[in-house]
């Protein structure tokens, strides 16, 4: 089971409930704006403690409200590309990329710095600070940063939005490669139907 | 309008605080408006007068500042006079012995051992200047100088002895009498320093109708009695 997630949460009177059991290598999480997709990703990454539920990825238990299991984010090793980028503003792009890479055991790394920079086309941005990046540039660096932390699974929150077609195609191919060759479970949030059909083995809808 | 209901504004050295409260009360008992008393370091008060503070009388713990004001013409001529004197004593800390200490070379040093001698800052604060002069006159300055801890004023010097941080302290007799638990180990001879005097004068810019009368009251027998009660000594040769 790549993703085995069951959770209940609420913000005020906004209830979010999800039951997701997927064996697909890439699972797409879709649903209208505000349905709770980002909330689910946050819960899986360990950034939000759901009211109740159970989260296991690739057979590894990350959270269980019944038994009190709650691994800290750094132990979960999610490769989370945030919807809003969330780059470290005081570090140059190169340092942002290196942040998780340095912390990952070198044996666990499955993609090299050079490869990421090349595939995402961010070579010319390495010495820039995030404040001086365009929207799409931020997104690409955020994806690169997540990939380089040697994650055990990927959480991609709308990774292709605000990218031009050519760039989006390159990154879609990269995702396909990760999915097929590396067998890293991927949970992808997307609003693009074509993208979901192309990439996902299973689609879970949140309402 | 305020002038009618309010007595003269009196700037008095901080060490005069209590005595002035009582003098003021006696003045009020005679049917006058209560004087407005402000106490601070003599230096601060003198500077206020220099800058035209709306005050009527000045009582200094320090002849130097009074001289300075007189030279610069800020005092009403003929109104200056000493209203009290004081005596310097050596006090010891609690449980540090009560025997008298002879103020001769060797004895003070011996009594001090490796302890501290607290006094008001000897270079500037009046009590410290008198103390330094006395120690020098008695030939003691050189041997105790390294152990002196100069304080901001006499009360702070006293407090250091009270806390036991200093073994001995040089303070005014008027201060020493407020701490009966600290033994007076010696009194400095009056001849070892210039006389300790508290001069009072009316400030030149004063316009308060009661100023002269209050000034006279300060030199009168009733005020003298109150000052004596607070440990000040009478002025050697009485002046107007």
């Amino acid at each position, binding site marked *: 089971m790549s993703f085995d997630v069951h959770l209940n949460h609420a913000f005020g009177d906004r209830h979010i409930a999800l039951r997701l059991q997927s064996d697909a290598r890439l699972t797409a999480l879709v649903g209208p704006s505000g349905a709770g997709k980002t909330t689910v990703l946050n819960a899986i990454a360990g950034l939000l403690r759901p009211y109740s539920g159970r989260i296991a990825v690739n057979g590894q238990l990350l959270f269980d409200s019944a038994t009190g299991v709650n691994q800290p984010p750094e132990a979960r090793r999610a490769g989370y590309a945030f919807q809003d980028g969330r780059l470290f503003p005081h570090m140059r792009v190169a340092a942002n990329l290196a942040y998780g890479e340095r912390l990952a055991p070198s044996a666990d790394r499955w993609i090299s710095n050079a490869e990421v920079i090349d595939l995402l086309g961010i070579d010319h941005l390495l010495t820039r600070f995030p404040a001086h990046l365009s929207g799409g540039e931020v997104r690409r660096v955020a994806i690169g940063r997540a990939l380089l932390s040697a994650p055990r699974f990927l959480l991609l929150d709308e990774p292709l939005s605000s990218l031009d077609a050519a760039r989006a195609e390159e990154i879609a191919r990269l995702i396909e490669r990760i999915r097929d060759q590396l067998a890293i479970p991927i949970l992808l949030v997307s609003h693009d139907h074509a993208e979901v059909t192309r990439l996902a083995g299973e689609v879970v809808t949140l309402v | 309008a305020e002038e009618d209901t309010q007595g003269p504004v009196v700037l008095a050295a901080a060490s005069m605080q209590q005595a002035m409260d009582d003098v003021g009360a006696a003045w009020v008992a005679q049917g006058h408006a209560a004087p407005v008393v402000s106490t601070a370091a003599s230096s*601060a008060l003198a500077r206020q007068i220099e800058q035209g503070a709306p005050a009527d009388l000045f009582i200094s713990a320090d002849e130097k500042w009074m001289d300075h004001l007189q030279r610069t013409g800020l005092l009403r001529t003929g109104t200056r006079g000493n209203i009290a004197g004081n005596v310097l004593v050596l006090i010891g800390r609690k449980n540090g012995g009560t025997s008298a200490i002879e103020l001769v070379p060797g004895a003070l040093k011996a009594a001090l051992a490796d302890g501290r001698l607290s006094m008001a800052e000897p270079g500037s604060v009046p009590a410290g200047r008198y103390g330094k002069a006395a120690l020098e006159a008695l030939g003691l300055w050189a041997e105790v100088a390294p152990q002196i801890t100069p304080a901001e004023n006499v009360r702070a010097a006293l407090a250091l002895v009270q806390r036991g941080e200093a073994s001995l302290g040089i303070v005014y007799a008027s201060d020493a009498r407020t701490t009966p638990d600290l033994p007076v180990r010696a009194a400095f001879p009056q001849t070892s320093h210039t006389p300790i005097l508290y001069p009072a004068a009316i400030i030149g810019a004063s316009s308060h109708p009661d100023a002269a009368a209050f000034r006279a009251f300060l030199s009168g027998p009733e005020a003298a009695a109150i000052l004596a009660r607070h440990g000040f000594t009478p002025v050697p040769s009485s002046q107007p």
Partner: protein
Amino acid sequence: MNSALGASEWAIVVLSLKVSLVAVMLVLPVAYALGWLLARRRFPGMLLLDGLVNLPLVLPPVVTGWLLLLLFGRNGAIGGWLENQFGVVLVFRWTGAALAAAVMALPLMVRAMRLSIEAVDRRLVGAARTLGASRWYAFRTITLPLSAPGILAAAVLGFARSLGEFGATVTFASNIAGETRTLPLAIYTGLQAPGGEALVTRLAIISVVLSLGALLASELLARRMMGRGGHVL
């Protein structure tokens, strides 16, 4: 604690509160303007202005009091003018104590304001401008409220500092019971008196309680603001 003493202590507390509150109110807008200037503008005399603002922090308070006396005394450049033009006298008045406290609080308050103004995202001001806001309106509705944590911190710092101000006050405004004898001056006076420790302790406790009250109020206010969407992030 006899009741006569209680009454005079009460008067001291009221005076101290009056002086401190007036000082803080006086300084708040000035400090904010200075904080804004230092945070948002680069101009030639900037360092000098910064230095001037910090002067009362660096100099011993007594010197600041003396400088105030030189400037705002009746013979001083500004003091004389104030008296001639408006009949305003500051020395020996509670207003003078408030001025002394204000000057001493200024550098602390400017720093707090400046830090918070620097933390406001300027792009939000740009967004407001595209929506039709003038410079001034955008300032009022965006920069000002978003720097509220700094204003609050400045007010608390300034209030506490004013409550504890001694040296400049005694030098400039003197130590007159009922007019300029604030809590610290009363404490000083108590320290001069034999056996004044009990009074000093009582007054010190009052000071502490007042400042705790101010801190509590500011924490509550801050939490209310934080509650509003945690924008103080």
